[in-house]
Protein backbone atom coordinates (compact mmCIF):
# COMPACT_ATOMS: atom_id res chain seq x y z
CA UNK A 1 0.00 0.00 0.00
CA UNK A 2 1.22 3.49 -0.77
CA UNK A 3 0.38 6.86 0.72
CA UNK A 4 -1.43 7.87 -2.51
CA UNK A 5 -3.86 5.01 -1.85
CA UNK A 6 -4.03 5.68 1.89
CA UNK A 7 -4.65 9.43 1.54
CA UNK A 8 -7.32 8.88 -1.14
CA UNK A 9 -9.07 6.40 1.14
CA UNK A 10 -8.85 8.83 4.05
CA UNK A 11 -10.43 11.55 1.88
CA UNK A 12 -13.41 9.26 1.31
CA UNK A 13 -13.58 8.36 4.99
CA UNK A 14 -13.59 12.07 5.89
CA UNK A 15 -17.00 12.33 4.21
CA UNK A 16 -18.38 10.39 7.17
CA UNK A 17 -17.29 12.97 9.75
CA UNK A 18 -20.19 14.46 11.64
CA UNK A 19 -20.77 18.08 10.68
CA UNK A 20 -21.66 21.16 12.71
CA UNK A 21 -25.37 20.92 11.86
CA UNK A 22 -25.46 17.36 13.25
CA UNK A 23 -23.93 18.54 16.53
CA UNK A 24 -26.43 21.41 16.70
CA UNK A 25 -29.26 18.88 16.31
CA UNK A 26 -27.70 16.51 18.83
CA UNK A 27 -27.38 19.19 21.51
CA UNK A 28 -30.98 20.22 20.94
CA UNK A 29 -32.21 16.63 21.59
CA UNK A 30 -34.75 16.53 24.40
CA UNK A 31 -33.54 13.21 25.88
CA UNK A 32 -30.52 10.94 25.66
CA UNK A 33 -32.64 8.39 23.79
CA UNK A 34 -33.40 10.99 21.10
CA UNK A 35 -29.72 11.88 20.90
CA UNK A 36 -28.73 8.21 20.55
CA UNK A 37 -31.40 7.79 17.90
CA UNK A 38 -29.76 10.60 15.90
CA UNK A 39 -26.38 8.97 16.50
CA UNK A 40 -27.82 5.72 15.21
CA UNK A 41 -28.12 7.31 11.75
CA UNK A 42 -24.35 7.82 11.55
CA UNK A 43 -21.25 5.63 11.46
CA UNK A 44 -21.66 5.21 15.20
CA UNK A 45 -24.75 3.05 14.57
CA UNK A 46 -22.67 -0.15 14.72
CA UNK A 47 -21.85 0.46 18.39
CA UNK A 48 -25.44 1.16 19.41
CA UNK A 49 -26.81 -2.29 20.06
CA UNK A 50 -29.40 -2.55 22.78
CA UNK A 51 -30.17 0.48 24.91
CA UNK A 52 -27.01 1.83 26.49
CA UNK A 53 -27.15 3.47 29.88
CA UNK A 54 -26.24 7.12 30.38
CA UNK A 55 -22.50 6.31 30.44
CA UNK A 56 -22.76 3.69 27.69
CA UNK A 57 -22.15 6.21 24.95
CA UNK A 58 -18.50 6.33 26.02
CA UNK A 59 -18.25 2.70 24.97
CA UNK A 60 -19.87 3.52 21.61
CA UNK A 61 -17.51 6.45 20.96
CA UNK A 62 -14.43 4.49 22.05
CA UNK A 63 -15.54 1.58 19.87
CA UNK A 64 -15.71 3.83 16.82
CA UNK A 65 -12.28 5.34 17.57
CA UNK A 66 -10.75 1.87 17.96
CA UNK A 67 -12.41 0.74 14.73
CA UNK A 68 -10.98 3.79 12.94
CA UNK A 69 -7.47 3.04 14.25
CA UNK A 70 -7.77 -0.65 13.30
CA UNK A 71 -8.99 0.35 9.85
CA UNK A 72 -6.07 2.71 9.36
CA UNK A 73 -3.56 0.12 10.52
CA UNK A 74 -4.79 -2.17 7.74
CA UNK A 75 -3.91 0.20 4.91
CA UNK A 76 -1.46 2.85 6.16
CA UNK A 77 2.10 2.00 5.00
CA UNK A 78 3.66 3.02 8.34
CA UNK A 79 1.56 1.65 11.21
CA UNK A 80 3.77 3.60 13.62
CA UNK A 81 1.88 6.77 12.64
CA UNK A 82 -1.26 5.30 14.19
CA UNK A 83 0.72 4.09 17.23
CA UNK A 84 2.11 7.61 17.65
CA UNK A 85 -1.42 8.95 18.06
CA UNK A 86 -2.41 6.14 20.43
CA UNK A 87 0.70 6.43 22.58
CA UNK A 88 -0.78 9.04 24.99
CA UNK A 89 -3.61 6.58 25.76
CA UNK A 90 -1.05 3.87 26.59
CA UNK A 91 0.73 6.22 28.97
CA UNK A 92 -2.61 7.19 30.47
CA UNK A 93 -3.27 3.51 31.11
CA UNK A 94 0.15 3.11 32.72
CA UNK A 95 -0.69 6.05 35.01
CA UNK A 96 -4.03 4.46 35.96
CA UNK A 97 -2.40 1.10 36.74
CA UNK A 98 0.43 2.66 38.72
CA UNK A 99 -1.96 4.82 40.74
CA UNK A 100 -4.07 1.72 41.40
CA UNK A 101 -0.98 -0.12 42.61
CA UNK A 102 -0.01 2.82 44.83
CA UNK A 103 -3.52 2.80 46.31
CA UNK A 104 -3.47 -0.96 46.71
CA UNK A 105 -0.29 -0.69 48.79
CA UNK A 106 -2.17 1.59 51.13
CA UNK A 107 -5.14 -0.76 51.25
CA UNK A 108 -7.14 1.11 48.61
CA UNK A 109 -9.06 -0.19 45.65
CA UNK A 110 -7.67 -0.78 42.17
CA UNK A 111 -9.44 1.37 39.57
CA UNK A 112 -8.87 -0.65 36.41
CA UNK A 113 -12.34 0.40 35.27
CA UNK A 114 -10.69 3.73 34.32
CA UNK A 115 -8.41 2.05 31.76
CA UNK A 116 -8.90 3.17 28.20
CA UNK A 117 -9.20 0.77 25.28
CA UNK A 118 -7.80 3.39 22.94
CA UNK A 119 -4.12 2.58 23.51
CA UNK A 120 -2.03 0.59 21.06
CA UNK A 121 -0.96 -1.84 23.78
CA UNK A 122 -3.40 -4.32 25.25
CA UNK A 123 -4.40 -3.25 28.79
CA UNK A 124 -4.18 -6.83 30.10
CA UNK A 125 -0.51 -7.12 29.17
CA UNK A 126 0.19 -3.71 30.72
CA UNK A 127 -1.47 -4.83 33.98
CA UNK A 128 0.44 -8.12 33.97
CA UNK A 129 3.78 -6.44 33.33
CA UNK A 130 3.27 -3.76 35.98
CA UNK A 131 1.74 -6.01 38.63
CA UNK A 132 4.30 -8.75 38.04
CA UNK A 133 7.13 -6.18 37.94
CA UNK A 134 8.19 -7.61 34.59
CA UNK A 135 9.13 -4.23 33.23
CA UNK A 136 11.09 -5.71 30.35
CA UNK A 137 7.76 -6.53 28.67
CA UNK A 138 6.68 -2.88 28.71
CA UNK A 139 6.76 -0.91 25.45
CA UNK A 140 8.36 2.50 24.75
CA UNK A 141 11.23 1.73 27.13
CA UNK A 142 8.86 2.23 30.02
CA UNK A 143 10.89 -0.36 31.89
CA UNK A 144 13.57 2.31 32.45
CA UNK A 145 11.19 4.79 34.03
CA UNK A 146 8.80 2.69 36.13
CA UNK A 147 11.35 1.92 38.91
CA UNK A 148 11.97 5.69 39.09
CA UNK A 149 8.22 6.27 39.45
CA UNK A 150 8.08 3.79 42.33
CA UNK A 151 10.98 5.39 44.18
CA UNK A 152 9.45 8.85 43.60
CA UNK A 153 6.18 7.59 45.02
CA UNK A 154 7.97 6.14 48.06
CA UNK A 155 9.66 9.51 48.67
CA UNK A 156 6.83 11.94 47.96
CA UNK A 157 3.57 9.95 48.01
CA UNK A 158 2.52 12.48 45.37
CA UNK A 159 0.93 10.91 42.24
CA UNK A 160 1.32 14.25 40.43
CA UNK A 161 5.13 13.91 40.52
CA UNK A 162 4.86 10.41 39.03
CA UNK A 163 2.50 11.72 36.32
CA UNK A 164 4.99 14.47 35.41
CA UNK A 165 7.81 11.93 35.04
CA UNK A 166 5.61 9.71 32.87
CA UNK A 167 4.49 12.68 30.75
CA UNK A 168 8.12 13.64 30.19
CA UNK A 169 8.86 10.06 29.12
CA UNK A 170 5.78 10.04 26.86
CA UNK A 171 6.95 13.10 24.96
CA UNK A 172 10.51 11.76 24.72
CA UNK A 173 9.13 8.46 23.36
CA UNK A 174 6.85 10.30 20.90
CA UNK A 175 9.76 12.40 19.66
CA UNK A 176 11.95 9.31 19.31
CA UNK A 177 9.28 7.47 17.30
CA UNK A 178 8.59 10.58 15.17
CA UNK A 179 12.30 10.99 14.37
CA UNK A 180 12.54 7.28 13.55
CA UNK A 181 9.60 7.71 11.18
CA UNK A 182 11.13 10.81 9.61
CA UNK A 183 14.08 8.67 8.57
CA UNK A 184 11.63 6.85 6.27
CA UNK A 185 9.13 9.59 5.47
CA UNK A 186 11.52 12.54 4.96
CA UNK A 187 8.81 15.15 5.59
CA UNK A 188 9.78 16.70 8.91
CA UNK A 189 6.09 17.36 9.57
CA UNK A 190 5.57 14.51 12.03
CA UNK A 191 8.43 15.62 14.29
CA UNK A 192 7.24 19.24 14.08
CA UNK A 193 3.75 18.12 15.11
CA UNK A 194 5.12 16.29 18.17
CA UNK A 195 7.14 19.40 19.08
CA UNK A 196 3.98 21.52 18.86
CA UNK A 197 2.15 18.93 20.95
CA UNK A 198 4.80 19.33 23.65
CA UNK A 199 4.40 23.13 23.44
CA UNK A 200 0.64 22.78 23.80
CA UNK A 201 1.00 20.55 26.87
CA UNK A 202 3.51 22.98 28.42
CA UNK A 203 1.12 25.89 27.87
CA UNK A 204 -1.79 23.94 29.39
CA UNK A 205 0.40 23.20 32.40
CA UNK A 206 1.45 26.85 32.61
CA UNK A 207 -2.21 27.98 32.73
CA UNK A 208 -3.07 25.41 35.40
CA UNK A 209 -0.04 26.23 37.54
CA UNK A 210 -0.53 29.97 37.16
CA UNK A 211 -4.14 29.66 38.32
CA UNK A 212 -2.94 27.58 41.27
CA UNK A 213 -0.61 30.42 42.21
CA UNK A 214 2.49 28.27 41.74
CA UNK A 215 5.88 29.98 41.73
CA UNK A 216 7.46 29.90 38.20
CA UNK A 217 10.75 28.53 39.53
CA UNK A 218 8.97 25.74 41.39
CA UNK A 219 6.91 24.98 38.28
CA UNK A 220 9.94 24.23 36.11
CA UNK A 221 9.85 20.41 36.62
CA UNK A 222 6.28 20.34 35.26
CA UNK A 223 7.38 21.53 31.81
CA UNK A 224 8.67 19.13 29.21
CA UNK A 225 11.67 19.38 26.93
CA UNK A 226 11.60 18.82 23.18
CA UNK A 227 9.15 21.50 22.08
CA UNK A 228 9.85 24.81 20.36
CA UNK A 229 9.16 26.63 23.65
CA UNK A 230 11.71 25.67 26.29
CA UNK A 231 10.68 24.84 29.88
CA UNK A 232 12.31 28.10 31.05
CA UNK A 233 10.24 30.19 28.59
CA UNK A 234 7.06 28.39 29.63
CA UNK A 235 7.84 29.09 33.29
CA UNK A 236 8.53 32.77 32.51
CA UNK A 237 5.09 33.06 30.87
CA UNK A 238 3.51 32.28 34.22
CA UNK A 239 4.67 35.67 35.48
CA UNK A 240 2.68 37.43 32.76
CA UNK A 241 -1.08 37.93 32.40
CA UNK A 242 -2.72 35.39 30.10
CA UNK A 243 -3.73 38.09 27.59
CA UNK A 244 -0.08 38.91 26.81
CA UNK A 245 1.02 35.30 26.19
CA UNK A 246 0.19 35.44 22.50
CA UNK A 247 2.40 38.53 22.17
CA UNK A 248 5.25 36.91 24.10
CA UNK A 249 4.98 33.85 21.87
CA UNK A 250 4.53 35.79 18.62
CA UNK A 251 7.86 34.38 17.37
CA UNK A 252 6.29 30.91 17.45
CA UNK A 253 3.27 29.66 15.54
CA UNK A 254 1.42 28.82 18.72
CA UNK A 255 1.24 32.49 19.78
CA UNK A 256 -1.54 33.26 17.29
CA UNK A 257 -3.60 30.35 18.65
CA UNK A 258 -3.64 31.99 22.08
CA UNK A 259 -4.95 35.33 20.81
CA UNK A 260 -8.49 34.38 21.80
CA UNK A 261 -7.51 33.47 25.37
CA UNK A 262 -8.66 35.77 28.14
CA UNK A 263 -8.48 35.56 31.87
CA UNK A 264 -11.83 34.31 33.22
CA UNK A 265 -13.06 34.06 36.76
CA UNK A 266 -13.74 30.35 36.31
CA UNK A 267 -10.48 28.43 35.93
CA UNK A 268 -12.26 25.55 34.21
CA UNK A 269 -13.65 27.88 31.53
CA UNK A 270 -10.20 29.39 30.95
CA UNK A 271 -8.64 25.94 30.73
CA UNK A 272 -11.26 24.55 28.38
CA UNK A 273 -11.01 27.60 26.10
CA UNK A 274 -7.23 27.32 25.96
CA UNK A 275 -7.39 23.57 25.48
CA UNK A 276 -9.82 24.07 22.60
CA UNK A 277 -7.56 26.71 21.02
CA UNK A 278 -4.48 24.48 21.38
CA UNK A 279 -6.25 21.38 20.02
CA UNK A 280 -7.37 23.48 17.06
CA UNK A 281 -3.78 24.66 16.60
CA UNK A 282 -2.45 21.09 16.60
CA UNK A 283 -4.87 20.29 13.78
CA UNK A 284 -4.02 23.47 11.86
CA UNK A 285 -0.27 22.77 11.87
CA UNK A 286 -0.99 19.61 9.89
CA UNK A 287 -3.64 21.10 7.62
CA UNK A 288 -1.15 21.99 4.87
CA UNK A 289 -1.03 18.25 4.23
CA UNK A 290 -4.65 18.20 3.10
CA UNK A 291 -3.55 19.63 -0.27
CA UNK A 292 -1.12 16.77 -0.81
CA UNK A 293 -2.14 13.49 -2.38
CA UNK A 294 0.52 11.51 -0.57
CA UNK A 295 1.58 13.34 2.61
CA UNK A 296 1.88 10.79 5.47
CA UNK A 297 0.82 13.40 8.05
CA UNK A 298 -2.71 13.11 6.60
CA UNK A 299 -2.99 9.95 8.73
CA UNK A 300 -2.37 11.93 11.93
CA UNK A 301 -4.67 14.70 10.70
CA UNK A 302 -7.49 12.19 10.16
CA UNK A 303 -7.03 10.68 13.63
CA UNK A 304 -6.93 14.13 15.27
CA UNK A 305 -10.19 15.06 13.55
CA UNK A 306 -11.72 11.77 14.60
CA UNK A 307 -10.65 12.44 18.19
CA UNK A 308 -12.05 15.97 17.93
CA UNK A 309 -15.34 14.49 16.72
CA UNK A 310 -15.33 12.03 19.64
CA UNK A 311 -14.65 14.87 22.09
CA UNK A 312 -17.52 16.89 20.62
CA UNK A 313 -19.82 13.89 20.85
CA UNK A 314 -18.92 13.33 24.50
CA UNK A 315 -19.63 17.00 25.30
CA UNK A 316 -22.96 16.93 23.49
CA UNK A 317 -24.12 13.61 24.96
CA UNK A 318 -23.05 14.47 28.53
CA UNK A 319 -24.90 17.77 28.16
CA UNK A 320 -28.07 16.04 26.94
CA UNK A 321 -27.85 13.22 29.50
CA UNK A 322 -27.43 15.58 32.45
CA UNK A 323 -29.67 18.38 31.18
CA UNK A 324 -26.83 20.91 31.25
CA UNK A 325 -26.92 24.38 29.73
CA UNK A 326 -26.99 23.85 25.94
CA UNK A 327 -25.36 27.20 25.20
CA UNK A 328 -22.39 26.30 27.42
CA UNK A 329 -22.01 22.96 25.61
CA UNK A 330 -22.12 24.72 22.23
CA UNK A 331 -19.26 26.97 23.33
CA UNK A 332 -17.19 23.95 24.34
CA UNK A 333 -17.53 22.26 20.95
CA UNK A 334 -14.54 22.53 18.66
CA UNK A 335 -15.26 23.44 15.08
CA UNK A 336 -17.56 20.52 14.25
CA UNK A 337 -17.12 19.62 10.62
Amino acid at each position, binding site marked *: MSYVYAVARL*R*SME*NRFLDASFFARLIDSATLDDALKSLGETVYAQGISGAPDAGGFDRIIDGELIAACDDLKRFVPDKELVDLCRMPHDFNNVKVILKSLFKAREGGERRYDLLSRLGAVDTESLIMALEGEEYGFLPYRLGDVIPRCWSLWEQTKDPQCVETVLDGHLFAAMLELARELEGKLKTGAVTRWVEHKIDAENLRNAVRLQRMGCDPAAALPFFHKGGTIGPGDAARLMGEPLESWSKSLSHTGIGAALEVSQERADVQVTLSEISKALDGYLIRVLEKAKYSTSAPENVILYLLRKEEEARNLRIALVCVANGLNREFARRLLSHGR
Partner: protein
Amino acid sequence: MDVLGLMLGLLGAAFAAGMAGIGSAVGIGIAGESAAGVMSEDPDKFGSCLILQALPGTQGIYGLLIAFIVLNKLGLLGGQPVSISWSQGLLVFAACLPIAIVGWYSAIWQGKTSAASIQMISKKPDAFAKAVILPAMVETYAVLALLTSFITLMVISF
Protein backbone atom coordinates in the same frame (compact mmCIF):
# COMPACT_ATOMS: atom_id res chain seq x y z
CA MET B 1 22.88 0.46 -46.86
CA ASP B 2 24.06 2.60 -43.95
CA VAL B 3 23.19 0.44 -40.92
CA LEU B 4 24.10 3.17 -38.46
CA GLY B 5 21.49 5.55 -39.92
CA LEU B 6 18.79 2.90 -39.71
CA MET B 7 19.84 2.02 -36.19
CA LEU B 8 19.60 5.63 -35.05
CA GLY B 9 16.15 5.92 -36.61
CA LEU B 10 15.00 2.74 -34.89
CA LEU B 11 16.47 3.91 -31.61
CA GLY B 12 14.37 7.08 -31.93
CA ALA B 13 11.20 5.01 -32.47
CA ALA B 14 12.07 2.84 -29.49
CA PHE B 15 12.66 5.89 -27.32
CA ALA B 16 9.37 7.51 -28.38
CA ALA B 17 7.26 4.43 -27.67
CA GLY B 18 9.29 3.26 -24.67
CA MET B 19 9.73 6.44 -22.66
CA ALA B 20 6.23 7.78 -23.30
CA GLY B 21 4.88 4.33 -22.50
CA ILE B 22 6.80 4.12 -19.23
CA GLY B 23 5.56 7.59 -18.28
CA SER B 24 1.97 6.57 -18.99
CA ALA B 25 2.33 3.36 -17.01
CA VAL B 26 3.67 5.28 -14.00
CA GLY B 27 1.00 8.00 -14.34
CA ILE B 28 -1.83 5.49 -14.63
CA GLY B 29 -0.35 3.61 -11.68
CA ILE B 30 -0.37 6.72 -9.48
CA ALA B 31 -3.92 7.64 -10.48
CA GLY B 32 -4.95 3.99 -10.04
CA GLU B 33 -3.68 3.90 -6.46
CA SER B 34 -5.73 6.97 -5.68
CA ALA B 35 -8.79 5.52 -7.44
CA ALA B 36 -8.45 2.25 -5.51
CA GLY B 37 -8.28 4.20 -2.24
CA VAL B 38 -11.46 6.13 -3.03
CA MET B 39 -13.31 3.07 -4.33
CA SER B 40 -12.44 1.05 -1.22
CA GLU B 41 -14.80 3.35 0.64
CA ASP B 42 -17.12 4.39 -2.18
CA PRO B 43 -17.37 1.82 -5.02
CA ASP B 44 -20.04 3.92 -6.79
CA LYS B 45 -17.30 6.29 -7.98
CA PHE B 46 -15.85 3.66 -10.35
CA GLY B 47 -16.97 5.47 -13.52
CA SER B 48 -15.51 8.87 -12.69
CA CYS B 49 -12.35 7.32 -11.25
CA LEU B 50 -11.78 5.23 -14.37
CA ILE B 51 -11.98 8.27 -16.67
CA LEU B 52 -9.52 10.20 -14.54
CA GLN B 53 -7.21 7.21 -14.27
CA ALA B 54 -7.17 6.74 -18.05
CA LEU B 55 -6.06 10.32 -18.80
CA PRO B 56 -2.28 9.77 -18.39
CA GLY B 57 -2.50 6.88 -20.85
CA THR B 58 -2.59 9.14 -23.92
CA GLN B 59 1.16 9.88 -23.87
CA GLY B 60 1.87 6.19 -24.45
CA ILE B 61 -0.44 6.28 -27.48
CA TYR B 62 1.32 9.42 -28.82
CA GLY B 63 4.69 7.70 -28.44
CA LEU B 64 3.41 4.63 -30.25
CA LEU B 65 2.02 6.81 -33.05
CA ILE B 66 5.39 8.49 -33.59
CA ALA B 67 7.12 5.09 -33.49
CA PHE B 68 4.78 3.82 -36.23
CA ILE B 69 5.47 6.89 -38.37
CA VAL B 70 9.23 6.37 -37.98
CA LEU B 71 8.99 2.64 -38.82
CA ASN B 72 6.90 3.50 -41.85
CA LYS B 73 9.32 6.20 -42.94
CA LEU B 74 12.23 3.79 -42.61
CA GLY B 75 10.32 1.28 -44.71
CA LEU B 76 10.44 -1.32 -41.97
CA LEU B 77 6.68 -1.94 -41.93
CA GLY B 78 6.68 -2.92 -45.60
CA GLY B 79 9.80 -5.06 -45.28
CA GLN B 80 11.83 -2.78 -47.60
CA PRO B 81 14.19 -0.75 -45.37
CA VAL B 82 15.29 2.54 -46.94
CA SER B 83 18.92 3.45 -47.12
CA ILE B 84 19.71 6.49 -45.00
CA SER B 85 22.96 8.12 -43.88
CA TRP B 86 23.91 8.33 -40.20
CA SER B 87 23.13 12.09 -40.21
CA GLN B 88 19.62 11.40 -41.56
CA GLY B 89 19.21 8.72 -38.89
CA LEU B 90 20.29 11.22 -36.29
CA LEU B 91 17.65 13.65 -37.56
CA VAL B 92 14.95 10.99 -37.14
CA PHE B 93 16.26 10.24 -33.66
CA ALA B 94 16.14 13.95 -32.75
CA ALA B 95 12.58 14.21 -34.08
CA CYS B 96 11.51 11.46 -31.69
CA LEU B 97 12.95 13.14 -28.61
CA PRO B 98 10.15 15.69 -27.92
CA ILE B 99 7.43 13.05 -27.48
CA ALA B 100 9.83 10.67 -25.73
CA ILE B 101 10.93 13.17 -23.09
CA VAL B 102 7.78 15.31 -22.73
CA GLY B 103 5.55 12.24 -22.97
CA TRP B 104 7.44 10.47 -20.21
CA TYR B 105 7.52 13.44 -17.84
CA SER B 106 4.05 14.84 -18.54
CA ALA B 107 2.38 11.44 -18.08
CA ILE B 108 3.83 11.13 -14.57
CA TRP B 109 2.67 14.63 -13.63
CA GLN B 110 -0.70 14.07 -15.24
CA GLY B 111 -1.00 10.94 -13.11
CA LYS B 112 -0.31 12.99 -10.00
CA THR B 113 -2.88 15.59 -11.01
CA SER B 114 -5.39 12.85 -11.79
CA ALA B 115 -4.75 11.37 -8.33
CA ALA B 116 -5.51 14.77 -6.79
CA SER B 117 -8.63 15.11 -8.95
CA ILE B 118 -9.82 11.66 -7.87
CA GLN B 119 -9.45 12.77 -4.25
CA MET B 120 -11.35 15.93 -5.16
CA ILE B 121 -14.34 14.04 -6.55
CA SER B 122 -14.35 11.78 -3.51
CA LYS B 123 -15.26 14.87 -1.48
CA LYS B 124 -17.17 16.81 -4.16
CA PRO B 125 -18.71 14.46 -6.74
CA ASP B 126 -20.43 17.41 -8.45
CA ALA B 127 -17.06 18.87 -9.43
CA PHE B 128 -16.28 16.07 -11.91
CA ALA B 129 -16.00 18.42 -14.93
CA LYS B 130 -13.49 20.60 -13.10
CA ALA B 131 -11.64 17.50 -11.93
CA VAL B 132 -11.17 16.36 -15.55
CA ILE B 133 -10.01 19.78 -16.77
CA LEU B 134 -7.10 19.97 -14.30
CA PRO B 135 -5.18 16.90 -15.54
CA ALA B 136 -6.25 17.71 -19.11
CA MET B 137 -4.22 20.92 -18.85
CA VAL B 138 -1.06 18.80 -18.51
CA GLU B 139 -2.08 16.99 -21.69
CA THR B 140 -1.58 20.24 -23.67
CA TYR B 141 2.18 19.88 -23.45
CA ALA B 142 2.14 16.24 -24.50
CA VAL B 143 0.07 17.27 -27.55
CA LEU B 144 2.55 20.06 -28.35
CA ALA B 145 5.42 17.57 -28.12
CA LEU B 146 3.52 15.14 -30.37
CA LEU B 147 3.01 17.90 -32.93
CA THR B 148 6.69 18.86 -32.78
CA SER B 149 7.83 15.27 -33.32
CA PHE B 150 5.25 14.73 -36.08
CA ILE B 151 6.06 17.94 -38.02
CA THR B 152 9.80 17.35 -37.67
CA LEU B 153 9.45 13.82 -39.04
CA MET B 154 7.35 15.11 -41.93
CA VAL B 155 9.97 17.66 -42.99
CA ILE B 156 12.80 15.11 -42.98
CA SER B 157 13.14 13.70 -46.44
CA PHE B 158 15.40 10.84 -47.53
